[in-house]
């Protein structure tokens, strides 16, 4: 078991070595991208679960009572808490404050999605850069040894192919996750907006 783990690590280091210099920014990019993706997944999951019903939200606001974080942690309870914290007491002004709160929460839904998209889109480009570098290495080898020495050319060619492969392997799940997160954000935004209108009518 541990032996296998070490073999895998060794092969990974070999893989990185044969991929050349582009592998390191690619790995860093992948790390940041997945960090943001997982954070967003956890965040949205929390906003989905343990949500308030619209009646409970209105009850909290009318009683001016902060929601209990053990019971409620969804997007609507965040909206209620934000509103209670910043409300003025004047119903006309409170409507504007409620609108602003809804807008603020909805804007925060999109927080890192654009970054994730940009990272996922730039991963294959970085793989392409690695390909170009690998081909340049190959041509340098050809310039020295001629086309006869296939073994020497193999280094550059494998660099070219491995970076492309890695770039695509980073980009494909990244792109998928971006789409998935955008759909979730859209749903959450709709839900908050609906509750916002409901509360506005009751104020």
């Amino acid at each position: 078991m541990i032996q296998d783990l070490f073999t895998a690590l060794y092969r990974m280091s070999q893989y990185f070595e044969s991929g050349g210099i582009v592998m390191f920014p690619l790995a860093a990019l992948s790390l940041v991208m997945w960090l943001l993706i997982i954070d967003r997944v956890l965040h949205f999951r929390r906003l989905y679960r343990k949500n308030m019903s619209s009646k409970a939200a209105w009850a909290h606001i009318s009683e001016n009572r902060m929601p209990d974080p053990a019971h409620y942690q969804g997007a609507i309870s965040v909206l209620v808490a934000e509103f209670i914290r910043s409300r003025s007491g004047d119903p006309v002004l409170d409507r504007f404050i409620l609108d602003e709160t809804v807008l603020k929460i909805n804007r925060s839904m999109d927080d890192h999605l654009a970054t994730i998209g940009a990272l996922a889109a730039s991963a294959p480009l970085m793989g392409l850069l690695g390909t170009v570098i690998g081909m340049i290495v190959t041509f340098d080898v050809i310039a020295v040894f001629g086309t006869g020495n296939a073994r020497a050319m193999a280094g550059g060619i494998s660099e070219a192919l491995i970076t492309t492969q890695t770039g695509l392997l980073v980009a494909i799940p990244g792109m998928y996750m971006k789409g998935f997160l955008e759909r979730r954000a859209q749903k959450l935004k709709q839900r908050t907006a609906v509750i916002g209108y409901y509360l506005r009518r009751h104020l």
Partner: protein
Amino acid sequence: MRGKEPENSYFRVLFRRRRGAWAMAAAAAAALNLAIFALVPYLLEADPEIKTYKKIASGINVIRMQEPEDPEPEPKEEEKEKEEEKEEEKPDPKKEAVAKKIARPEMTVPFDINPRLPAGPDSLELPEMTTPQAYSPKDMFSAGELDRPLTAVSRIPPTYPMRAKRRDIEGWVKVRFVVDKQGRVREVTILEQEPDGVFDKTVRNCVSRWRFKPGTVAGVKVKTVAETTIRFELD
């Protein structure tokens, strides 16, 4: 909600959860990346090495087994009989082995072996000495029976006869000759020619000057009968 520590208890809880989520995301992202990059090299895995080894081995076997061309049961029996007869003699085993190897193809040559013949070639050691026939199967092998095809050391093309050149005659000569154990050409015979009597002289002259690497059967140098067709074409 974000940034500095909020005053309200609800927001404090939210803030703590946010921080926990980030820590968890960092750990999960690191683990996921490690897994992806560790598994990718296994995508390139290829291990059909053992298979190819087996294939190569069997291929060699097939080639080596082909040597006796059409083993007729009759000559084998005869060989047995002969061996039984000579059990008392006990010849040198090494020489006998070589002689057997050479002798084996002779049995397959179309040659009427009469079992009732008086003991002609008694010993297996010296089969080629006892039969002085020109194309006797004892000492002569055709080019196809050799370990490898005959290779010419020097093969000068024949000169185009002046007479034929003047008259624009083209043609061909089919010639048979014997390459002896030293690689020299002997016994040149013209088998067929077209047209008659134009090219045979020059062919005889040039073919007898050719030199070959002596042909071998099972590593032993032998005389070889070879045939070739020489074409005379004007350009």
